[in-house]
């Protein structure tokens, strides 16, 4: 009984309509675009997306009709500016938005990962982010200082992309981690995509590089370049031109539909996607 399966199977089994899904946990690094595109292809609906900064993947999922709610700190295109599907959907009321700072969304997941119902912080005090049911003013039981209590959140699924893992899901996560460990610890199911699946003995050579226990992981899928167009430490650079092209081609719903057909809906799988890209230019 192994956790290793195909991306199609993993998304089919782990991501269900109406789920709360945390993804893009590395901020602009190691974003699980391959898994995100598979969610769009499988026409998942009414998802709640949770994340800190998610470059353009949230925008694509919103444009793909998968999303009813977003709970995040920042949604845009870091190099380009606005995320147009997101703007349109929030301004029209088509999706619900719950605003966070990076730290408050991280603490929602950290609380759940630690098994406590809340964690205190000094951020967000005095800001309008406090208009959020998961943030409450409180006083320290020892010092009486004003603090913000952040309620725990346990997503249904976390989707993570990493460099390598064994078949049990023990993964090396190289480079910055963002809120990856918190997301894995908080979620009921974890879908892990990796560049390479290796033997457990390889992982045990440097157990300090393992970011979370494989006991938390539900499915492990080998997806080379699974984070493209975002960068991945040790494997490939960011595809800057792709982000700028997406920015130009998502300004109207009509343009976005064409982009989506070309890059997601009409492609059967990731292999076809990669054949459209000069991937060797990005490889380290």
């Amino acid at each position, binding site marked *: 009984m192994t956790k290793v399966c195909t991306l199609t199977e993993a998304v089919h089994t782990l991501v269900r309509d109406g789920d709360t899904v945390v993804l893009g946990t590395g*901020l602009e690094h190691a974003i699980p675009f391959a898994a995100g595109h598979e969610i769009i292809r499988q026409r998942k609906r009414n998802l709640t997306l949770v994340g800190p*900064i998610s470059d353009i993947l949230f925008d694509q999922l919103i444009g793909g009709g998968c999303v009813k709610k977003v709970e995040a700190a920042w949604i*845009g295109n*870091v190099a380009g500016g606005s995320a147009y599907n997101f703007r349109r959907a929030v301004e029209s009321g088509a999706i619900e938005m719950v605003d966070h*700072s990076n730290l408050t969304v991280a603490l929602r997941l950290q609380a759940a990962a630690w098994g406590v119902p809340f964690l205190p912080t000094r951020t*967000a005090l*005095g*800001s309008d982010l406090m208009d959020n049911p998961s943030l409450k003013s409180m006083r320290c039981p020892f010092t009486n200082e004003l603090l913000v209590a952040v309620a725990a959140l346990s997503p249904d699924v976390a989707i993570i992309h990493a460099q390598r893992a064994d078949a049990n899901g023990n993964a090396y996560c190289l480079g910055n981690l963002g809120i990856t460990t918190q997301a894995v610890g908080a979620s009921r199911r974890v879908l892990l995509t990796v560049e390479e699946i290796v033997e457990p003995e390889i992982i045990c050579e440097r157990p300090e590089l393992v970011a979370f226990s494989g006991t938390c992981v539900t499915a492990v899928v080998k997806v080379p370049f699974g984070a493209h167009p975002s*960068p991945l*430490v040790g494997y490939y650079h960011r595809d800057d031109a792709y982000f700028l092209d997406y920015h130009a081609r998502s300004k109207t719903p009509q343009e976005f539909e064409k982009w989506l057909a070309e890059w997601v809906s009409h492609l059967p799988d990731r292999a076809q996607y990669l054949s459209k890209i000069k991937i060797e230019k990005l490889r380290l």
Partner: protein
Amino acid sequence: MNYTPQELMVAAAARQIQDRELVFVGMRLPMLAFQLAKVTHAPRAVSLFENGLLREASAQAMIYTMGDLPNQIGATWATGLIDVMALLQRGAVEVGFLGGAQIDRFGNLNTTWSNAGERKLRLPGSGGACDIACLAKRVVILMNHEPRRFVERVDYITSPGYGSGGAWRREQGLTGGGPSVLITSKAIFTIDSASKEWVLHSVHPRVSLDEIKQSVGWRLQIAPELRETVPPTSEELSRIRAFDPQGFWTRRAV
């Protein structure tokens, strides 16, 4: 010597960084400012990125995002967001840089919602900006100087400045120092120590005082000895252009 307003902003921002300081950098112009400070007066300044990176050495290539490989390679510490935010929350970060779509008299920033006549425009949101605004010892703000951005009161406080002024931050329980300097494409502002509103500190070369006064949505305090902003030196300009050869962030026609 010719320079763009963005190049002047980068040079002015770099001067806000002192040697050995721990700096929460962010992207775009502050990133260039940090790089400039490192090669001029602050070689041992340390940069911190909310994605979970700390660098003692500068990045060796232009980057679009803090996750880009030139920012990862040569990092001193690769960790998670909360570890970096912990340095901020426990008061170890001397200065953080912020931008914003809208700013008000008391330094509050809005990057969430703005009102354009009837329409509400959705902006990207806080990211780590609220955290930096709440928790850094000093905050330096960089903004393009457009009148619609400078209002009496922001529509939404994404990143708290001094709220309604005076002792507001202390009353809210905020532990960070709040905004210290605002660098725009036309002028530099500092904070009045009592009222906590902006004071016009210097005007950039070729900008008139009247233009500044008319561009802000409140009655602007002006420093008794108003100066002209020191323009970037030729060394600063050549450094900035080496970091951003295409002028991607500094909008320089090449």
